[in-house]
């Protein structure tokens, strides 16, 4: 793998982190539910499913795939904020919100990845 591709992965990672940070700033004033993480995880997983689907049917350059998949999607989405916020909600006795948040992330994130991945493969065959 060339140094240019590695550099592009890091730059895409920086861009993903900035997009996620800006999303969290937009929702900073609504502390009732952790919306920011759900949104970036849903959007990023949907994009990742699209890229994995394109790779499966062989219509994306492998370098571009890894730059966007590992760099942009990997960094736009996050797990550590989800896990730490969930434990913090549980500690504050907001167990219902904690369970809802985890459930919504799994449903929306995996659902978006599955819909785009299988949708693309279905279209191609």
């Amino acid at each position: 793998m060339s140094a240019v591709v590695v550099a592009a992965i890091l730059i895409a990672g920086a861009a993903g982190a900035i997009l996620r940070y800006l999303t969290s700033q937009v929702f900073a004033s609504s502390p009732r539910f952790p919306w920011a993480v759900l949104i970036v995880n849903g959007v990023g997983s949907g994009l990742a499913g699209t890229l994995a689907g394109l790779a499966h049917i062989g219509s994306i350059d492998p370098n571009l795939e890894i730059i966007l998949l590992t760099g942009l999607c990997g960094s736009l989405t996050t797990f550590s904020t989800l896990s730490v916020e969930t434990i913090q909600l549980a500690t504050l006795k907001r167990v219902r919100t904690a369970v809802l948040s985890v459930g919504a992330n799994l449903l929306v994130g995996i659902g978006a990845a599955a819909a785009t991945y299988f949708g693309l493969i279905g279209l191609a065959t």
Partner: protein
Amino acid sequence: MIRDLAAVAVGGALGTGLRFALDLAFATDDGLFPLSTLIANILGSFVLALVVAHLWDRSPLWVRAGLGAGLLGSFTTFSALAVAVVQLADVDQWMLALIYLAATMVLGLAAAALGLRLGLARRARLDLVNE
């Protein structure tokens, strides 16, 4: 604002680079059951919880942004987890998909709980010394 965004960008590039290095170190032949993503998500959850409990309320915003949203936010990932589950299901490895998902959730949440607990305990000890 500019300093916070710069910290997020630098942290994000570093976190992505570390996650990518783990991917290369733990590369599997078939690409199924990505151990590197599991390790990154557990380790990142633990470290984020530790620093949130231990230093968050006495750190400037740019440090929190660079370390939390940047480095650890980018080191851990949800999209790779989602794609791994979908691809395991695609090759009819439903049980493996379920195990991978359950392992990430249980170990990730446990790591966050442990990190918060250890961070708070360490804080309490330091506060005692400084009194």
